[in-house]
């Protein structure tokens, strides 16, 4: 059997050790913090944007931050994390060492994908926590904003889980690129081009075909208070990520390792 649970667990732990003190871990904390902070500054300095009666201020606070996060920051963070998780081996000439250990290539590959996915998930949890805290802080600092009895914690959390599922396709794509190319410009370049290109194409009628647009599209239910998971974008992301994951696995299992 090529994938034993114990070796997979050990392998994932070693990946965590390798990420100590790397930019990837900081990125997962700082990326959501940055977006939420800027978002907070906007609404703190312009409380009138939120001051309308009868509208839920959370919708604007969370919606605005989620928009920016899903359109720009999240795809860029995924690009960075996928690059660093693989570059740690490219830089250390680690592949030849790892693949000469009695651990299957499937295990190594899977644990690296797991750690990448986990960091993206972690960044979304941090994002949720920061968003909720920033809203609470606004309500204390600006009593004139009508928070009333409005609360959206559940909606924010459910939306970010949908965003997470919708980002799996980008994760596997960026991972596939980064594991096969040592070149910083290739993996980061494609990620940045994909992200910026997508942000320009959002109004295109077929934008739901672009993998980099899926997290933003999955987050739109927030406005409609539509929290169901059974959406085309999420299916597309899930099935697409399984296909790309399998393709990457096939490539790495059959590759000559230098």
């Amino acid at each position, binding site marked *: 059997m090529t994938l034993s649970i114990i070796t997979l667990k050990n*392998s994932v732990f070693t990946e965590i050790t390798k990420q*100590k003190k*790397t930019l990837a871990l900081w990125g997962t904390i700082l990326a959501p913090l940055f977006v939420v902070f800027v978002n907070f500054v906007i609404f703190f300095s312009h409380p009138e944007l939120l001051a309308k009666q009868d509208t839920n201020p959370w919708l604007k606070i969370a919606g605005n931050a989620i928009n920016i996060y899903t359109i720009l920051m999240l795809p860029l963070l995924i690009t960075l994390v996928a690059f660093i998780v693989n570059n740690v081996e490219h830089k250390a000439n680690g592949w030849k*060492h790892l693949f000469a*250990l009695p651990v299957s290539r499937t295990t190594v590959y899977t644990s690296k994908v797991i750690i990448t996915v986990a960091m993206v998930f972690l960044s979304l949890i941090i994002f949720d926590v920061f968003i909720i805290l920033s809203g609470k802080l606004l309500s204390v600092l600006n009593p004139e904003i009508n928070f009333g009895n409005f609360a959206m914690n559940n909606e924010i959390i459910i939306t970010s889980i949908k965003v997470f599922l919708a980002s799996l396709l980008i994760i596997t794509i960026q991972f596939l690129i980064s594991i096969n190319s040592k070149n910083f410009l290739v993996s980061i370049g494609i990620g940045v081009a994909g992200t910026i290109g997508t942000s320009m194409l959002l109004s295109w009628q077929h934008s739901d075909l672009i993998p980099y647009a899926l997290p933003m599209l999955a987050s739109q239910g927030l406005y409609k208070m539509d929290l169901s998971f059974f959406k085309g974008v999420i299916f597309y992301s899930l099935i697409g990520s399984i296909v790309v994951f399998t393709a990457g696995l096939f490539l790495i299992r059959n590759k000559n*390792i*230098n």
Partner: protein
Amino acid sequence: MENYIETNHLDFSFGKLKVLNDLSINVSAGSIYGFLGPNGAGKSTTIRAILGLYKTNGNHIRVFGESINTNRLSILNRIGALVESPTLYDHLSGYDNLEITRKLRNLSKNRTSEVLKIVNLQQDAKRPAKQYSMGMKQRLGLALTLLSEPELLILDEPTNGLDPHGIIEIRELLLRLKKERGTTIFISSHILSEIERIASHVGIINKGSLLFQGTLLELREIGVSTVYIETSELEKGLKLLQKNNFPLAKLNKSNMIEMDIENKEEINKITRLLVKNDVPIFGISNSKKDLEQLFLDITKEN
């Protein structure tokens, strides 16, 4: 004796470029096998193929008697390998670097401090690897291979870039492993003098083909050496020899007959021939080409 590594008519190509050609090497259990060849001869390719890093077809490679293509993981479990420069995560401490491999191999926790002791890095274990000198990095790389107490060590140019002191340290460590644990060691190098000091067996490769394989003694035996003969009958002796299988015999500047021979048996033939024909021999000596010269000759001819 059991063969730990066996390649059987191994060919390997990158696209159309053939890098290994009908390579058959045998590394017997308990030996220190020096795998020699100039840079680009195919040493690293061979090692990568043996470890399954390069994909080969069929069962041309057997380690511990099993095919690498069918039993890769169980084979790798018994091997410690250092392929070219050691894999070190620069931002992590020497200790953490070892821990990563220890966890992946599922070994007991005390192994990390044990190997640190073997390679004498306990003092520096907590420092990040990027602060290590070349020699320390190489020793840490070696420690990685020793974690699992392997039966077979495969080391690709482990002394590359080390100063003489570092080279001696590694050499002594390897000899100690062989002596104390009976570890079989397969070590590649492009420097013969380095291998000469530790190896029991030698394989010489050039342009992807094996040119010699045998014990170090056998290598010395095959070496061409030069015989010098002192005699009062120079002309007669010379003609006699030239007519009898030594066409290249010649007179040298110090008035001796000089000729190259392939093996020691020929010295016997020469003396018999001369004595039988009443050529007096006042002195006979033979100078061996040193191994370095031999190695250069073998790899140049090809």
